[in-house]
Structures are given as structure tokens and as C-alpha cells.
């Protein structure tokens, strides 16, 4: 498996990367860790004339933690896992990142690449929808912010333009309990079904809940109705059941090697139920 030939670029600044993307249009592709793109190139399912390697762009790196949290797009999954301040501030990130791929891939794969390439199998997009994160995109026309909940259009199609770069992900410091529950065929696999849940509670009652599902549609699925179904409840069996029922109206899984649609729908309910229970127990 050898990819087709390409021109390699390693710009040092965001502006340089944008100008390369602008100059080469459809023929260019930005690459972070490359662990989604390179296999596609090797299988010759992606033909890239100009590969723009982002690794030297310092502005795309780093994690800032304040009232809100900003994660540079080039932050690797391993950096995210090993950042103890980040884990204290938003522990769901580590819980999810540890369920992505394997150690070698987490050393190279980035959060930005994971959320930007639009693969419905990726875990971070659903997680970012759960956290109501904002993606900052920079292009020749300047920067703009897009909510993760509005970013995904269909598999591999997002509201990012070809000449834009995802620069950073920002979200408010989450409150309450959390859970990232994922069932996969084996370690390193994409989810058969996964749920990201954040629950805030007071006096044994849910005050706010956010729920997103992974790999159960051609985009990640933020289910506002599922979260709403929990608010005001004690997260008892009936409440969880109504959240699951609401979530099932929002997903649209496809049959594949991980199983038929009926299984995935049933599993989505089980996984979400477990995620809610765990998140509430931590709230």
C-alpha cells in the first residue's frame, strides 16, 4: 500500500497554511496527525496533490484552562490524557480519549483532526457536542466560530470550508457528573455505540443534562430532547427510559459489520442508560 505522489508542505504559521490551501484549492489537504488521512491515501481512496503538514504551527498547540477551556487543534490524545489540570477541569475528556485507538495512535492523533474530519466513527465530535464546544475556524476571510452542534452535515461533510483550518476548540468548564460510555468490538475500534453525558444535579434532582451519541448516524447526534427528559427528575428508571426514548428518535444507525440496525438501536439505549447512571452517580 503506497500512496500516490504529492507535494509536501510544512508551514510555520496559520496564515502560511491558509495560503497554501487557498492556492491549491481542492488539490490540497491539511494534515494533523494523519492517522485518518494516511491510511486513506495508502488505500488510494484519497488523492492529495499538496499535503499541508501542520505540525510546526505553534499557534495550533496548547491547552488553556480558565472559566472556559481552550484546546489547540494539534493537541494529541496522549497530551490530553496526560494533562492533569485538564483532567481535573473536564474529566470526561480523559475518560473518552482513553477509549480511542491505542497508545501509539494516541501519541500522534490529534483532537483537532478527530473533530474536523467528519468521520461519524470518531469519538471527540459527540463529546464536543455534549460539552457544547465551539470550533474556531480560520480562513482567508478571517476567523469564525461554529458550535460543534452545528458543525456536522453528513459523513465527512462539515461546515468547514476547504480553505479553512480548525484552530482551536473552546468550551465552558463542565459542571456536575460525566460519563463517556463506549461499546466496541475490541480495543482500538470505533464505537458500536457510544454516549457522552454531562449531568448537573442539586438536591438529588437533575438541573441540567447534555447528551450526545457517537457512530449511530452519519454525524454525531446531540439529543437535546434526551437531556431535557432528565431535567427535574431524580434520574430514576422511568427518567432514564424517557431519555432513551427521546434519544432513539434522534439517531439513525446503519447496518454494518458491527451489527444490524435493531441491535444498534437497542445497544444505544443500554449504553446511554449506563452513561446516565454513571454520570448522575458522579454529579
Amino acid at each position, binding site marked *: *500500500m*503506497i*500512496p*500516490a*505522489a*504529492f*507535494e*509536501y508542505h*510544512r508551514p510555520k504559521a496559520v496564515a502560511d497554511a491558509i495560503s497554501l490551501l487557498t492556492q491549491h484549492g481542492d488539490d490540497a489537504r491539511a494534515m494533523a496527525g*494523519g*492517522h485518518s488521512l*494516511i*491510511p486513506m*491515501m*495508502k*488505500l488510494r481512496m484519497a488523492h492529495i496533490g499538496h*499535503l499541508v*503538514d501542520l*505540525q510546526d504551527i505553534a499557534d495550533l498547540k496548547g491547552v488553556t484552562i480558565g472559566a472556559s477551556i481552550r484546546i489547540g487543534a494539534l493537541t494529541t490524545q*496522549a497530551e490530553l490524557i496526560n494533562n492533569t489540570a485538564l483532567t481535573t477541569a473536564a474529566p470526561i475528556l480523559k475518560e473518552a480519549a482513553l477509549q480511542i*485507538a*491505542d*497508545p*501509539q*495512535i494516541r*501519541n*500522534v492523533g490529534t483532537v483537532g483532526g478527530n473533530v474536523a474530519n467528519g468521520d461519524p466513527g470518531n469519538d471527540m465530535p459527540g463529546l464536543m457536542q455534549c460539552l457544547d464546544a465551539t470550533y474556531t475556524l480560520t480562513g482567508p476571510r478571517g476567523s469564525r466560530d461554529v458550535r460543534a452542534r452545528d458543525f456536522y452535515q453528513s459523513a465527512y461533510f462539515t461546515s468547514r470550508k476547504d480553505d479553512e483550518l480548525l484552530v482551536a476548540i473552546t468550551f465552558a468548564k463542565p459542571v456536575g457528573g460525566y460519563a463517556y460510555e463506549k461499546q466496541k468490538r475490541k*480495543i*482500538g475500534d470505533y464505537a458500536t455505540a457510544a454516549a457522552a453525558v454531562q449531568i448537573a444535579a442539586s438536591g438529588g434532582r437533575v438541573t441540567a443534562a447534555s447528551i450526545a451519541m457517537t457512530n449511530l448516524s452519519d454525524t454525531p447526534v446531540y439529543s437535546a430532547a434526551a437531556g431535557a427528559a432528565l431535567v427535574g427528575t431524580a434520574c430514576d428508571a422511568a427518567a432514564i427510559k424517557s431519555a432513551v426514548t427521546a434519544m432513539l428518535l434522534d439517531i439513525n444507525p446503519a447496518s454494518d459489520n458491527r451489527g444490524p440496525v435493531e441491535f444498534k438501536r437497542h445497544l444505544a439505549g443500554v449504553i446511554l442508560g449506563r452513561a446516565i447512571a454513571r454520570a448522575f452517580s458522579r454529579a
Partner: protein
Amino acid sequence: MKKMHIELTVNGQPMETLAEPRELLVHVLRERLGLTGTHIGCETSHCGVCTVDMNGKSVKSCTVFAAQANGATITTIEGIAGADGMHILQSSFREHHGLQCGYCTPGMITRAWRLLQENPSPTEEEVRFGMAGNLCRCTGYQNIVKAILHAASEMSAKEAAE
């Protein structure tokens, strides 16, 4: 296609070569630098037989372009042994029968070498989780895990003695 000048520090030695940008790190190591200890198994970053250490981290060299690695410090299986002979991990794999056909072994040991630097005294569960990016078809992993755990305690004992 035009070739690029690639400079790497491999197993402590500066090395340079010309390579097309599309050449993968594993191909450059094997074909251009003659370091055939690093193998190719699945080519889609699942099996880990191509694992090398790049800038202090384990990576799968079948999914890194040589161009990306340009300027990097690389350790391959050929660089694990020291001047005084086999590394403890290498002798431990032999002692505990942690290999059979040997094809996954270089990636396995190179990964374990980094794992024990990240976590010098892992539990069995941590070893199994930390080695999950490396497949073996022969051993069923039981003796690999045993070899790594024994190497960890031997290395700790050696360090304590020094």
C-alpha cells in the same frame, strides 16, 4: 516525483537520505537505511509490528511519512541493546518465551521499552492496556505480558542497586 532531503537521528547516529515525500518512515528505515528489524504487517496502523520510537514516543511507522519525521530522533529495535549486550527486555522475552515466529517481536519490544519508561512498575492490566497497539498471532500474549512484567521488576531492581 522530486525527492526530499531527509535527516534523522536513528539509534543515536545522524543519518540522511533522499526520499520521495510519500515514502513512509517504515520504508525509509527498511529500504534506504537498511534497518529491516522494523516490519510491516497490516499497513493500516492496526498491528503495530512497525512500531518505532519517535521523539520519545511510540509511533506506528507505517502511518508516518518520512517527510513528517524529518528532523526526528528515532529508536528502532536495532538500537535497543546497549554496549553491554541485550537489553533486559530482550533477554526477558527469551527467558519467558515471549515470542515464537518473531515477526511482531521488534515492535513489541520497542513499544514495551517506551512503556516501561512511561510506567516503570506497571500492573498486568496496565501492561495489557499499554501494549494494545501491538498484535501477536503466535503467543496469545500471556508470555509477552509475563516477560514485560519480569523485565520491569528486573530493571527496577537494577536501578535500585545502582
